[in-house]
């Protein structure tokens, strides 16, 4: 049993290693450690003037050298450069170092670099520690004397930590080389195809009866005006018949367990009431069905049958029955579809089913929705019939939509001669909606206004905007085209939209002219804010993935790790991570696939061994750690009544070590003893 109580306070200036020559073992590790006083080398980086311009590096090196037991202390302009790393390698050999401390930038940047350099020279990489004297010292401490003192404290702490470090070996786990992609919009389809084309199996789960997501609802795409269906359907068809893709449509992910490389997934298949194999997709049932419901795919512009498919090019081309409006399932009468079906594929007794799949990596492609109408009471949407959102207008423009591409307004089916487009309906609006910019609306509004003018030549189109944002290839030119084609842009935030007779009135301002404006329109189209798909938010929370305050899934690093998450094995694609347009979505989806493939290219996965570990002799099996663990990595063995850490799942956060009342749980190379010594040396 390791003595893990707080050590006596060290005498001033004494070398930590001398105090407790046997203190190198982190509790719980069984790897053995140096039995002699560790020989520490300290390397201080100038980082040009980043550190050197504030911290007096030569003085710092002198002070560090004076600490007893330091075998070598030196400085260099850029330690991360090749010659800088060579200095460390040479010193390890020349001075027989068994601990290395590099005083430089944050460990998130170069810890790996220096650990690898140490390993090259034969030192266990976990015996190399970083003292962050840039972000945590030089950049935030303007006074040179204070900065030098602070840097010394930080280096002393890193030395104290290093001498308590134990040599560790990375944890290896096998990889199940199958991927799960959640959501089959364009993001999920792209990820799935990329992974499948590389020769790996993909499980693709989609909650709707067919794949394609919101892109299947769009008419044309900006800024090229090519037909959305025409560029999407080759992908949906390919995904539908790809030998490496197992598609679960009308299904949802119910549960995920396991860890990176080895997930178990429980998938809930909603009852379709149609035998998937017997059905040929002929569509006779849909012609005769008398049941009706609101169509969310058509954004409420038309009713759909109780037995329905979303679109003519549906993949898979199999209808489902909406049990809420099916007359037979509700009242036991009707049964027309069963009578008419030439292959007897209708199954009124269908039940939901669960299937299990095993995968190694998961791509979250859960997508977006538009903001709830209720949040925008002053814009009248949901109340005033001729106020619709952008997706509904896409359906009006679409050749496969309820009007076959003719622009007709919902209230009376007349062709609107004056259409007002309202941008930032819920975006950039802290009072009513979301504080962020939804990114796609400026462009799709310009596109919709252009398309409207192409369909209705004598029509007038107005766009009310607060700013027009065009950061994308060909975007500014596209906006210019919209204004050149006679679309009137009015700069001002719309305050109210209401009905007057058969007109819809928009109150706004022209802030460039400095006056109030009232527009009497035949149809108003809101560029409603893009929000994270609420079901995706629920799922992400259930899977304990990090989401931001608006529900968007959070990437591991906003710049350098944009498709990874902080949970191993989960990757992000598409609007579930934040609003983005189609090209950006596809790029991110391919990036996520590339990350999955990079994982699958390895024989085994290696996980940092700086995890929690249990001293089983001390553990009483109270289960506090199990309750605390956010990753499900700790469980109490029911037979032996001791906690067991699944090192493959453990992210090394240390919460369990804090929660443990008996001191049995600790964190490899972050022991209590080492921590107390760090505090003492600071």
């Amino acid at each position, binding site marked *: 049993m390791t003595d893990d109580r707080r050590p006596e306070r060290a005498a001033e200036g004494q070398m930590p290693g001398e105090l407790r020559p046997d203190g190198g073992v982190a509790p719980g590790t069984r790897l053995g450690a140096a039995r002699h006083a560790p020989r520490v080398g300290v390397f201080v980086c100038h980082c040009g003037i980043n550190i050197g311009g504030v911290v007096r590096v030569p003085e710092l090196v002198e002070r560090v050298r004076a600490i007893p037991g330091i075998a070598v202390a030196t400085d260099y302009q850029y330690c991360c450069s090749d010659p800088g790393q060579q200095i460390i390698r040479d010193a390890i050999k020349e001075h027989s170092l068994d601990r290395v401390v590099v005083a430089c930038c944050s460990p998130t940047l170069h810890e790996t670099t220096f650990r690898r350099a140490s390993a090259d020279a034969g030192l266990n990489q976990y015996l190399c520690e970083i003292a962050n004297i840039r972000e945590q010292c030089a950049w935030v401490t303007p006074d040179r004397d204070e900065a030098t003192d602070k840097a010394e404290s930080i280096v002393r702490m890193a030395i104290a930590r290093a001498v308590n470090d134990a040599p560790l070996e990375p944890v290896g786990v096998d990889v199940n080389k199958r991927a799960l992609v959640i959501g089959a919009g364009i993001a999920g389809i792209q990820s799935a195809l990329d992974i499948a084309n590389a020769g790996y199996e993909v499980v693709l789960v989609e909650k709707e009866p067919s794949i394609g997501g919101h892109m299947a609802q769009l008419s044309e795409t900006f800024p090229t005006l090519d037909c959305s269906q025409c560029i999407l359907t080759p992908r949906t068809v390919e995904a539908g018949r790809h030998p490496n893709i197992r598609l679960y449509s009308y299904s949802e992910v119910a549960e995920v367990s396991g860890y990176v490389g080895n997930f178990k997934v429980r998938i809930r298949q909603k009852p379709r009431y149609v035998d998937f194999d017997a059905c040929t997709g002929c569509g006779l049932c849909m012609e005769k069905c008398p049941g009706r419901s609101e169509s969310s795919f058509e954004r409420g512009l038309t009713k759909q049958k109780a037995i329905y498919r979303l679109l003519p090019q549906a993949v898979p081309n199999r209808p489902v029955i909406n049990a809420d409006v099916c007359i037979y399932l509700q009242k036991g009468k009707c049964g027309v579809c069963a009578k008419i079906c030439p292959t007897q594929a209708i199954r009124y007794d269908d039940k939901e089913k669960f299937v299990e799949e095993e995968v190694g990596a998961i791509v979250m492609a859960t997508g977006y929705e538009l903001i709830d109408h209720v949040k925008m*009471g*002053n814009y*009248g949407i949901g*109340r*005033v019939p001729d106020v619709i959102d952008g997706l509904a207008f896409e359906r009006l423009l679409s050749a496969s939509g309820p009007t076959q591409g003719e622009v007709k307004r919902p209230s009376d089916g007349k062709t609107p001669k004056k259409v007002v487009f309202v941008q930032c309906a819920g975006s950039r609006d802290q009072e009513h909606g979301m504080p962020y910019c939804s990114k796609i609306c400026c462009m799709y509004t310009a596109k919709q206004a252009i398309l409207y003018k192409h369909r209705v030549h004598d029509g007038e189109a107005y766009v009310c905007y607060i700013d027009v944002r065009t950061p994308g290839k060909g975007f500014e030119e596209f906006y210019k085209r919209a204004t050149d084609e006679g679309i009137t842009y009015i700069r001002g935030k719309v305050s109210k939209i209401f*009905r*007057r*007779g058969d007109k819809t009135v928009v109150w706004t301002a022209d802030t460039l002219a400095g006056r109030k404006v009232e527009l009497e329109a035949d149809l108003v189209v809101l560029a409603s804010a893009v929000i994270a798909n609420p079901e995706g938010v629920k799922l992400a929370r259930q899977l304990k993935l990090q989401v931001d305050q608006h529900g968007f899934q959070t990437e591991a690093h906003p710049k350098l790790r944009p498709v990874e998450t902080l949970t191993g094995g989960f990757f992000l694609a598409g609007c579930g991570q934040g609003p983005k347009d189609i090209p950006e979505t596809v790029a991110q989806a391919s990036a996520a696939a590339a990350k999955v493939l990079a994982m699958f290219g390895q024989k085994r996965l290696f996980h940092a061994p700086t995890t929690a570990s249990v001293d089983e002799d001390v553990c009483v099996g109270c289960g506090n750690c199990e309750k605390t663990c956010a990753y499900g990595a700790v469980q109490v063995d029911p037979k032996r009544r001791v906690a067991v850490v699944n090192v493959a799942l453990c992210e090394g956060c240390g919460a369990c070590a804090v929660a443990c009342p008996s001191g049995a749980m600790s964190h490899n190379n972050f022991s209590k003893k080492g921590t107390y010594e760090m505090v003492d040396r600071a």
Partner: protein
Amino acid sequence: MTTAVAAKPGEQAEDNPVVETYTYYPGCTLYTKAKSLDRCARLAAEKVGFRLEEMPSWVCCGAIYNTSEDDFAGRIGAQRNIVRASALGDRLVTLCAACHNVLKRAQARLNDPANAVERQRVLDFLDEPYEREVRVLHYLEVLKNDIGWEALARKVVKPLAGLKVASYYGCLMVRPAAVLGFDDPENPQVMDELVRTLGGEPTGFDFKAECCGGYLVVNRPEAARVASARVLDNAKSWGAEAVVTTCPLCQYNLDKLRKPGKAGELPVFYFTQLLGLAVGLPKDELGFDSNAVDPVPLLEKRGLL
């Protein structure tokens, strides 16, 4: 001051063994121009199963909430009422939208820990015991949250069947939403729910929370007339045949700024008048004679009188 309806044990109706009593702040307008708002509310409460007990020696609420940071005198009247009400209970019910707005905001400021210094100054000045935190409630909040729409529906003896009503909330009922915490500030619902509960048809409309013209009626009546006409025109376009409101000033502007007797004008009710009608108050208690646009023909046409 008198207590409006004193409770005597043994007089309670048998189906209501415990009658909730709420401290009640009527406000000055309810004693003058808006008598029917007050009278119907008190009598309907008895029918519904709760009691309003008017607080003694109430003072003017100030009519408009003073938002200036340093002028605490402008809020002192409202806060005096709250401090006095604290001796009687932890709830204070109001009816007038303006009183409700001022009292609720004054109370929020009084209880805000960030304003502890000002609070002490106010309490020192008032020199009356502040017994407990008082929740300022609107009568509609009592109906919706304490009584509940289902229970209220059971008290309806004369459903307002076929009556198409636009609910007009004005600017004071639901804003600022963060303090009033009452309903959606842009498309409020509570009165629409009330109308539905009473058996009527809420039409919904676009100008529920737009300005009626307010106090402009005093110095620029023409501007107020334009504003209130806009509200009424929009209500009409939604098929409404009557408007219901909580605010005496809104009622005045919508009802009395028009030429009396003009055909097609919508009667403007206080919500308590419709409530009273539905729970069975007799016609002469409902105060229809104070309405400029006579609602009686409409109600007779719908078979409600």
